[in-house]
């Protein structure tokens, strides 16, 4: 009895500890990022500006240039990571992240159509991407449904939808003017270069609704991981819980993609990293979001400053880190016969 309590308290303490450490690292990474800029502000300058004591120049650099990009990175990272953690938990398969199962690809297709063909931007573009992604997700869900949701079926159907979506992207790009398609290509690599306060505001609005909604589902996700029958026998409303979780995951991925393009691999790996850090046998949602934010802030710093004078899209960095991880995951999944 006391031992059970002790084990449980220790586990909870561990997840709090992990979250605190990640949050501290995130704050440090953000501070570093603000000081790294080309304007060469000192940490003291940045600190003064942040508390409202800066001059016109530092105000401009911090509030108009650095901070929107930084906060976009934080929110996009958190949203993608949460989306990935939710999908992996619902489908019970570490491969089932929105980048693999066609969600991000569908959002890209919707985004490219919106940007290139319809000339949309801001809130309207976000809404358009969200609507397109939800439609694609419904299609995937229905096609993968066969008296229950099978993990592999979901992944395979998702890969099929991803192929269709990328065909749509290619088609739209070939039909567009050179300038349009160049802009669209940068967006498609996943880039924070174009982050502005307006885009950030739209993203923040979405995140303010969806992140709490996602975190509130931790308990239901934990039960759903036990399998449909066990979860239902323990009093979980399986269909409703799963539909709500998938919808939340889709919306999170959609708003992140609308803001920064389909930045690859963040959704795939953050949930798994967080899970291994927290070791609770449950989707570690808070830790996932923090890992995602931290990863994207660091990746964006690398993309901006690792090669002096060249500003790479952040998706290049996450791709370089993420691709080997995906290969490792595939080989390991195969060997252990897991992931079904």
């Amino acid at each position, binding site marked *: 009895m006391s031992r059970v309590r002790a084990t449980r308290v220790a586990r909870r303490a561990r997840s709090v500890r992990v979250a605190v450490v990640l949050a501290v690292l995130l704050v440090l990474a953000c501070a570093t990022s603000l000081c790294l800029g080309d304007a060469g502000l000192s940490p003291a300058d940045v600190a003064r500006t942040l508390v409202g004591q800066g001059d016109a120049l530092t105000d401009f650099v911090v509030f108009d240039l650095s901070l929107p990009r930084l906060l976009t990175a934080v929110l996009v990272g958190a949203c993608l990571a949460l989306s990935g953690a939710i999908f992996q938990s619902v489908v019970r398969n*570490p491969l089932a992240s929105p980048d693999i199962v066609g969600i991000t690809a569908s959002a890209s297709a919707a985004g490219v159509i919106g940007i290139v063909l319809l000339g949309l931007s801001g809130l309207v573009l976000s809404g358009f991407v969200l609507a397109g992604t939800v439609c694609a997700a419904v299609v995937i869900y229905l096609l993968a449904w066969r008296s229950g949701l099978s993990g592999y079926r979901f992944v395979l159907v998702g890969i099929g939808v991803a192929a269709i979506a990328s065909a749509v992207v290619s088609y739209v790009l070939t039909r567009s003017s050179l300038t349009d398609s160049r802009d669209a290509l940068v967006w498609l690599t996943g880039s924070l270069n174009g982050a502005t306060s307006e885009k950030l505001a739209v993203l923040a609005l979405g995140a303010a609704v969806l992140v709490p909604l996602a975190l509130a589902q931790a308990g239901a996700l934990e039960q759903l991981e036990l399998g449909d029958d066990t979860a239902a026998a323990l009093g979980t409303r399986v269909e409703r819980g799963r539909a709500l979780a998938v919808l939340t995951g889709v919306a999170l991925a959609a708003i992140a993609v609308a803001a920064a393009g389909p930045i690859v691999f963040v959704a795939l790996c953050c949930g798994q990293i967080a899970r291994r850090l927290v070791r609770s046998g449950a989707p570690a949602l808070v830790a996932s979001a923090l890992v995602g934010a931290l990863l994207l802030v660091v990746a964006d710093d690398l993309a901006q400053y690792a090669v002096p004078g060249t500003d790479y899209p952040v998706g290049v960095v996450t791709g370089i880190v993420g691709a080997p991880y995906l290969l490792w995951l595939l080989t390991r999944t195969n060997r252990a016969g*897991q992931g079904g």
Partner: protein
Amino acid sequence: MDDTPQTDRKDPVDTTASEPTGAGARQGAAVARHTLEARDLTLAYDGRVVVDGLGIAVEPGAVTSIVGPNACGKSTLLRGLSRLLAPQSGAVLLDGQDVATLGTRRVATVLGLLPQTPTAPDGITVADLVGRGRYPHQGWLRRWTTEDDEAVAEAMEATSVAELATRPLAELSGGQRQRVWIAMALAQRTDLLLLDEPTTFLDVAHQIEVLELLSDLNRDRGTTIVMVLHDLNLAVRYSDRLVAMRDGRVVAAGEPDAVVTAELVEEVFGIGALVTTDPVTGDRMVVPHGRSRRAR
């Protein structure tokens, strides 16, 4: 280990009486007995009828085993009884109320189900998994109470997995894992416990271990147990009542000694068998001789 052979059982058709298991005598006064009953129950997957107009009344406080050949609808019946599968027609009544009208969580506080091959979340430890059984008793925020901790500790104690509490489930042997799953169902603290082939994939020693654990549970706490079992002889030995199914219908139900006859084995499983007396327990014992081989 098990109850000694009983000679004073009641009429097998009426199911409301609970006597020789004695659970009621020991604890029954304090425990409100829940009743579970299927009336004219038809269950189907995608229009394919698997359980066909079946009627069964689970005897409160007893151990009931459902036996029958593969694909006869045993597991489907358990899913129907535990509200996981909505009936095509007919109804499942829990304490006289149609379970379809009761909330999922409400049902889960009274009736527990352990599926045949439950899936364990990646990296989960024994204590965490057992703790999941408390879900129906916790609110939306999953606040843990002393009662939750007690229930988990007691469930782990009863299944002798307490010393494994911090181990990851994946590291355990098949028998240990099965005990952990049973512990999870026990932590749910339901008066009715349904188990789908709790002994699958276990060697004979672990099969006995799990069945004795269940019969202890039934004896000590008066938990009503309904399980699907493959091994007819183990079913006879560890059950107060047997339900023999074939093609989605009940062929025979009642006390094992009354149900198990050579004719029934022939009818249900389609094989010839010698029914004799178990030299250990004195119960009925089935020695199948198959279609081709003749007994000497």
